[in-house]
């Protein structure tokens, strides 16, 4: 007989693990990553790989500083830093200098994740924070560095520097691309992972089937943004599709806003959280004329603890009934 283990109940547990969830997220990001490489060439691959490697290495260094054994670190490695690195890489332009993904990843992992206590303790999404850090620090590179993709980008080196993403040009009154182009990402300038909505949607379907994310939340976020954009555009219905198909909305809504750590853990809070995100994104886009999905998510991440409402427990009276009880109690006291 082997050693007998004593533990608390339950003695059988579900198959799902944190590691499994993170691997699922990585698998779901692969289509967007591949499309990014097809559109923007080897440079895109280089940027994403750099971000991934730096993220993982930063985490390892931190764990080594905490005097953990290397075997333990490898055993407990849960792929969260790899997801962070991959997301950060996908939100950068392929033309950024090599130090941008490196500094962004170091900031994301070291400052946002590890200094706050590691996995599950970060107050904002590390990838978003890393992106915003480099966005503010290297503003000139970040805003003007977008290129127009070409299908044969891998082989040819003569790429056109686009200068502005379709969203930026649209917000500033420039010409519009067709919705189909926006959906497929053909001829669209932008960050590595955000241009092909079709690939992002493929990943989203995988995540929903695997039950990693709930289908409600990305849809709620995207649709609210679209409706708000229509309202802000003086009820011009044709603004709906371009506003949701351009920019980083899909990438943000599917992979970043649904990050477990920084979303409310109950349904009630999530409804408010994602509606507010949608409204905030549309309004900020309208007001600032730049892409603001990451800023909106960062802001909502910070107010998330206030939205963690306790749901009504089984057998608990509703607040309306509670109010009525109080009212009748007060009335009976008054009658006396």
């Amino acid at each position: 007989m082997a050693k007998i283990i004593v533990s608390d109940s339950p003695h059988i547990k579900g198959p799902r693990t944190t590691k499994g969830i993170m691997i699922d997220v990585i698998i779901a990001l692969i289509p967007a990553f591949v499309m990014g490489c097809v559109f923007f060439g080897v440079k895109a691959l280089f940027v994403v790989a750099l971000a991934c490697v730096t993220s993982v290495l930063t985490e390892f260094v931190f764990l080594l500083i905490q005097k953990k054994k290397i075997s333990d670190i490898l055993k407990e490695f849960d792929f969260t830093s790899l997801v962070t690195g991959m997301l950060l890489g996908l939100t950068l332009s392929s033309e950024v200098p090599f130090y941008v993904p490196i500094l962004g990843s170091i900031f994301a992992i070291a400052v946002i994740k590890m200094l706050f206590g590691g996995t599950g303790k970060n107050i904002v999404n590390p990838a978003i924070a890393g992106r915003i850090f480099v966005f503010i620090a290297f503003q000139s590179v970040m805003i003007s560095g977008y290129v127009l993709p070409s299908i044969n980008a891998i082989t040819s080196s003569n790429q056109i520097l686009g200068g502005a993403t379709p969203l930026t040009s649209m917000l500033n009154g420039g010409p519009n691309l067709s919705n189909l182009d926006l959906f497929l990402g053909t001829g669209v300038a932008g960050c590595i992972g955000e241009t092909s909505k079709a690939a992002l949607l493929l990943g989203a379907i995988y995540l929903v089937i695997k039950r990693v994310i709930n289908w409600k939340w990305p849809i709620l976020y995207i649709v609210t943004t679209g409706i708000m954009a229509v309202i802000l555009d003086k009820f011009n219905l044709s603004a709906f599709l371009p506003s949701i198909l351009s920019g980083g909305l899909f990438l943000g809504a599917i992979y970043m806003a649904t990050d477990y750590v920084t979303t409310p853990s109950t349904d009630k809070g999530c409804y408010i959280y994602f509606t507010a995100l949608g409204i905030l994104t549309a309004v900020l886009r309208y007001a600032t004329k730049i892409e603001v999905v990451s800023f909106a998510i960062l802001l909502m991440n910070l107010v998330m603890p206030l939205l963690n409402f306790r749901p009504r427990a089984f057998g608990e009276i509703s607040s309306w009934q509670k109010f009525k009880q109080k009212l009748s109690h007060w009335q009976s006291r008054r009658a006396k």
Partner: protein
Amino acid sequence: MAIKGRKIFQPGIKIPDMKYLTEDKPIEQMPAPKTVYISMSQGIGAAAKPIVSVGDRVKKGQKTGQADGVVSANVFASVAGTVTAIKDIQNPNSKATTKYVVIENDFSEEEEFLPPLKEITKETIIERIREAGIVGLGGAGFPTAVKLSGQKPVEMLIVNGAECEPYLTCDYRLMMENSDEINKGIRYVAQALGVTDIRIGIEENKPKAIEKYKKVKDFQLFSLKKKYPQGSEKTLIAECARRKVPWGKLPIDIGVVVINVATAFTVYQAVEKNIPLYERVLTVAGKGVDNPRNLRVRIGTKTQDIIEYCGDINKDAVKIVRGGPMMGKAMHTVDGYTKKTDSGIVVLTAEETNTSKQSACINCGRCAKKCPMHLMSMKFDEYASIGRFDMAERFGVMNCLECGCCSFVCPAKRSIVQSVVLCKQKIAAKKGGK
């Protein structure tokens, strides 16, 4: 006709029920062991006081422990023989000790049962249930007589045949083999309560039992969806009676009494056959044991004897659980002794039980989504780790069923139930201190 469950309790989890191991094995009478160790504390309430002394000769069914107070139950000798010792033995899963009466079996099987009832009325049934030391055999072990003799009006009796714990099949086998006796027992309980509305809830994974109870005309049968924890008291009431037990209240407050089928069977035995509760049916299951089976075991039998009777533990067994795998307790040794409340012994192998270490909570909210009481389970874990038990209480930790759904679905494998038990103990200690 079977009525479908009302599906009022929405969350809960689907678990592979693993009942095929013992489902079709009839209940066997396990031979009486050489020595029995009868615990004086077999269920909720005060421990009984031993009324025999060392050297006494006792008969099977003779009272050895007298109930001490209202919420307490009599304890009976399960074999005939000589009392060799009355001693304190450490409990298998805590540091506390309990008094045990040790009886050496002489295999004469001499019996001394309760005197036959002259007439069967409400009062005599309740008195007989109290006298026979019957407690809830589902697991909690609350004295049944106390449940039946409450002052509040009762409208409905719900019989729990759900048996939602995976692996366990003892209630199912009892329903298949002794259904007439169970039905009589249920009617006696209904007579004692003075109710006519009798409902029985059975999970859908026991179609044969459902067929059997379709023929019983005076019960309303509810076929419940296979879901854990369907057989928990509050969820069962929601499904069968369409009532929710209010926060911090008991089922009796909404006029419902729930009893287990095994309890109903012992009620029948006590009322008609005058047999006190000295043996019970339990399931020995799990892939860690060679011949899983359902056994009728004398109370006080050593766990080791039971497992050896079922062909010993495999070499890859890693966990011995007393009760079902969801709510049972893991034992550090096989030296435990059977109590009235033990519904099973499950020996799990490493592939069945998950022994991975717990990692940090990622706030995914799966525990809160699956909680049958709609509580935010992750908060209990968080507050227990930082010692804020007052905050845990504000989030409703006292209403937790400890069913283990949260820990089952947790991807980080947090031991949430352990935190809940800790919170409950600390809060109770604080209230007791005041």
